[in-house]
């Protein structure tokens, strides 16, 4: 099976999606993130692994947190990081995406970190690089449309493994606006690959895609029922900016039915952890009492995210090597 993100030896060439990513590669990234976490705790938070490499952060869609964590990850690997705020640059003058890529390759780019509003844009770039014979240039998908956000999915898996060790005995619930969420897609793919015990998806009918059962997920439209005895609660952000048409009666009603409150969280296991990819809509999908409470691991997720992104970038940069 040919997979656009693996090379002919089955090694990671680009990180585009967690769909179809082999379990060994997934585990390799999670294992490698561990020693990088130690680096991020040092006085000098920097190792020389990517010294001299040029990493271009290409954000065609705004994202302060993801861009910042990729930038920090690359800098802690000693790479040179160039941030392109694309909405204010050539694309607004009509330069096409692939022209932009060609120009940056002419500046000897080694890696692109791409965020794009259109699903599949990073795949398009990866294919284009292959056609140009630029296999040594790597692409990391930092979120494309509704499709995938693989590093978020990976850091979520890292977080679960950090607190809960083994996946097979866990009940994990993904809560909220799954329909518009690339984060949810990546989480579901990774949890399935890693063999999670039970996967639940909880949300209003209008915000859940059809066919979730085929991924082995149990679907709930009632948060209280769905949270019963879960080990991990993965909240999603209500994506106001992606919401077209009236899928919700009101934010207040959403909060009442699907907002995570201390009272609803009490239905989960006593040691359940609460995750959220950020940024938080406090008082809508999550109460401050939960977000800032003892079971929240939302800020550790951010720290782990840097280590996971360092692992992904060094794995890719090391793939110029022969087998």
């Amino acid at each position, binding site marked *: 099976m040919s997979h656009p993100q693996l090379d002919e030896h089955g090694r990671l060439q680009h990180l585009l999606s967690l769909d179809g990513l082999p379990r060994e590669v997934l585990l*390799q990234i999670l*294992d*490698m993130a*561990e*020693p*990088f*976490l*130690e*680096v991020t705790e*040092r*006085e*000098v938070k*920097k*190792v*020389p*692994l*990517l010294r001299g490499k040029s990493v271009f952060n290409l954000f065609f869609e705004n994202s302060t947190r993801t861009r910042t964590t990729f930038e920090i990850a690359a800098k802690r690997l000693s790479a040179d990081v160039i941030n392109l705020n694309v909405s204010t640059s050539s694309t607004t003058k009509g330069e096409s995406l692939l022209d932009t890529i060609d120009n940056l390759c002419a500046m000897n780019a080694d890696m692109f970190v791409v965020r794009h509003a259109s699903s599949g844009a990073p795949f398009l770039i990866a294919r284009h690089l292959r056609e140009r014979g630029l296999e040594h240039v790597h692409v990391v998908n930092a979120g494309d449309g509704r499709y995938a956000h693989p590093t978020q999915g990976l850091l979520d898996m890292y977080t679960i493994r950090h607190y809960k060790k083994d996946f097979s005995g866990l009940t994990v619930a993904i809560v909220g606006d799954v329909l518009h969420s690339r984060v949810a897609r990546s989480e579901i793919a990774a949890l399935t690959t890693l063999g999670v015990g039970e996967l639940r998806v909880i949300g209003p009918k209008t915000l859940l895609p059809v066919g979730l059962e085929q991924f082995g997920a149990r679907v709930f439209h009632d948060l209280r029922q769905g949270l019963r005895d879960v080990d991990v609660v993965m909240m999603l952000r209500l994506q106001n900016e992606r919401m077209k048409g009236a899928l919700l009666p009101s934010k207040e009603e959403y909060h009442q039915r699907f907002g995570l409150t201390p009272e609803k969280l009490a239905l989960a296991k006593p040691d359940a952890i609460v995750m959220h990819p950020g940024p938080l809509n406090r008082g809508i999908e999550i109460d401050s009492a939960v977000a800032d409470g003892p079971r929240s691991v939302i800020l550790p997720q951010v720290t782990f995210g840097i280590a996971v992104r360092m692992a992904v970038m*060094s*794995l890719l*940069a*090391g*793939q*110029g*090597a*022969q087998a």
Partner: protein
Amino acid sequence: MNPIPEAEGLYSTLRKRLAADIDRFDALVGIHSGGAWLAERLQRELAPSKALGSIDVSFYRDDLAQRGLGRSRVRASHIPFPVQDARILLVDDVLYTGRTVRAAINELFDYGRPARVELAVLVDRGERELPICARYVAHTLPQPLPAGERLELARDEAGLFTLRTLRDEPPTTR
């Protein structure tokens, strides 16, 4: 040809050489994995009050583009003492090109400015590619090993050491 030396005997030799000098150091730091085992045992048997650390040099290697990461599992480095002004004994199983030691010294300096760093190894197999030498050596191979042959320390469940040779996967710049 070089017979493979007996590791436990070499360990005793190294321990004897270090015993008189151990108070010249504040801390022992072993290079993962063989050196870390050696440092751990030396510290336990010679100087239990001294600090013990371990280093995995994977992030400081000079051959990422040739070898990549992830062939073997990278461990977190563990330096639980202030490196600033410390007298450090770096410990490794086999000294070869010197590149691993170079990487370890670079890594140590990212934690602070040590007062002094010296090197102890079980076996010196020669053929240095950098100006690095060990102050404490249990055994020097009389002849070079064939290129592509790797010599490394193993440790059994009882904690006993053996040396073994492995065919290295090409290309090697260890």
